[in-house]
């Protein structure tokens, strides 16, 4: 092979890889954007529908833009029409959910942090079995505990109350919060705890003064995870509460299902957006932590 042909063949290789690369790139972006529109489509439809009037909805289709921003459906979804019976709207239930979520997130996170701390930094014989014992709770289908839970809440006199839901969510959140904290604390060197013990710090001092101050990232992950789970829960809400004590997801479902007269899709969509807004906002602002919770809940370590 002479020098010239070698150079030419190098040149050809260069050109070919350039063209295939370019085509590949375009194809890549095309597919990615196609999927992005599939994912964004329902959100778009919800938003435009919520701003339309009913005649507009009947005339146009899913994609048509509202002729003007019509806030009436939002007002109806949030505050109702103002006539008495049968007028369901989200405002009270939104506050129900807040009152349920805040304490439930706090208790489950706190218990999970303490449990994770003991399981990693005060190890004892059989501790990994205890962890497994708790971890299994992440996966059980809640149907298997619904019946006795309903009875227990009845016996305690807190069925159909926000307090009851706080208790339920606090308990069933423990396996998840324990998992998060345990996996986080495992990666913190034990030397830190040893050093603190030599310096004379006890069990609680080590936790509150040394571990907790460096736990911000995992606290954020856990709080976001628990917030999202509890806010979005429907099964417990629908089973253990009805009427005035219901959380927002249950109320939303009731609103959409109650077929009084004509279906008002714009109000339905506005309601759905209101019910989804808090978790969506948290996701947009702190998506990184949300994803971390999601993946670390699935793949440990």
């Amino acid at each position: 092979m002479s020098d010239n042909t070698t150079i030419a063949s190098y040149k050809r290789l260069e050109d070919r890889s350039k063209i295939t690369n370019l085509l590949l790139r375009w194809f890549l972006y095309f597919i990615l954007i196609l999927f992005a529109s599939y994912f964004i489509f329902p959100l778009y439809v919800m938003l435009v529908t919520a701003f339309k009037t009913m005649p507009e909805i009947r005339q146009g289709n899913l994609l048509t833009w509202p002729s003007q921003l019509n806030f009436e459906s939002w007002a109806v979804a949030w505050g109702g029409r103002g006539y008495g019976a049968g007028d369901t709207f989200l405002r009270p239930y939104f506050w129900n959910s807040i009152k349920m979520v805040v304490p439930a997130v706090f208790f489950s996170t706190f218990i999970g942090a303490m449990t994770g701390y003991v399981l990693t930094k005060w190890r004892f014989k059989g501790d990994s079995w205890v962890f497994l014992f708790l971890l299994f709770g992440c996966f059980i289908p809640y149907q298997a505990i619904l019946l006795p839970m309903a009875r227990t809440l009845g016996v305690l006199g807190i069925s159909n109350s926000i307090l009851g839901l706080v208790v339920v969510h606090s308990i069933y959140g423990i396996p998840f919060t324990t998992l998060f904290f345990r996996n986080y604390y495992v990666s913190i060197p034990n030397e830190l705890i040893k050093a603190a013990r030599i310096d004379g710090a006890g069990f609680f001092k080590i936790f509150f003064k040394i571990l907790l101050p460096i736990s911000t990232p995992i606290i954020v992950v856990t709080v976001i995870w628990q917030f999202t789970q509890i806010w979005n829960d429907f099964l417990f809400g629908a089973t253990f509460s009805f009427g005035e004590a219901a959380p927002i997801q249950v109320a939303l479902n009731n609103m959409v299902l109650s077929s009084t007269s004509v279906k008002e899709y714009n109000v339905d969509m506005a309601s759905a957006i209101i019910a989804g807004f808090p978790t969506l906002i948290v996701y947009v602002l702190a998506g990184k932590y949300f994803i971390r919770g999601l993946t670390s809940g699935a793949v440990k370590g």
Partner: protein
Amino acid sequence: MIALKIQDLSKNFGSTEVLKKINLKIDEGNFLVLLGPSGCGKSTLLNIIAGLETIDEGTVFIDDYDVSKVEPKDRNIAMVFQSYALYPSMSVKENMVFGLKQAKASKEKIEEQLKKFSNFLHVDELLNRKPSQLSGGQRQRVAIGRALVREPRIFLFDEPLSNLDAKLRVEMRREIKKLHQKLKTTVVYVTHDQTEAMSLGTNIAIMNHGIIQQYDTPENIYNKPNNTFVADFIGSPPMNLISGQLVKEANKTLFIPEGSGQSNNITIKNYNFVKTQDENSKDVYFGIRPEHIHYKKTNDNDIEFNLKTDLNEYIGHEQITTFNYFNQEVLGKFPSTIKIETNKEMKLFFDLSQISIFDKKTNNRI
């Protein structure tokens, strides 16, 4: 014949310049070591030679062909990585022949090459194992084997020994040296370990901050460092750099150590200056390696000193002693057979035939 030539090569990552106008040439069959501290750009340079990184400016020639935009697989190179980078889901055999298969080599050719090199590297017993079932040393052999079977023009090694323990590292270093003696293939080898560089390389390029500080033979790098960086980087402990002034007097050149007050000075003789020194006085570093400070006179170039010992570190086959030389620390290296007491005056001889002198302003050898 020149196997690899790098011309005015520059590379930026964002606003940081990783490589600045690099020029290098290596003849066929030589062993080039890129040596430098971490972040000096040596691995980037290797990746550019492999075609795994793009070039911002300049050209890479392999066998006189400009390969700057050629895909890695078409450059006729093979590479061994720090983490071995064996494909975990494939057996040793599949790992070794993967490249040949991609190049659509014939079955016979693949079998032949596999047999030849698995034998050569003593991995023929391991062919059906998965990488996870191998020890560190065995993985290293397989990684080298995977590179060998393709019989490339140039071998690239990216810190191949740094994941091995100390004993195995010395062993594998010798094996790589033997391998090169036998195959005579051109090698480019990246490391931060000076012993590896010195023992393996026929040529060493010392890099820092994206610039080649010195490109030379191991002997020259050790004996005639180009600048204070090289002087400091090579040798353990590094070269003593004593600051002071170089003064011309009548037909003598004198070194006056800082803080000595004119009276104490060293007459420089038999030193090959890079070029004749015009100025009458200049701030310089006087460089002498610890091993060139003797406890008894060895030749005529030795001049005598009496210095106080500050610290003595006994390390078995030798001992390293710190002296106070006009409040500057000077280290000496002695056999462990002699007795050295701390906080005592000790008679010493500096071997003036082995010194280096650097300009304090430019840090370059003069």
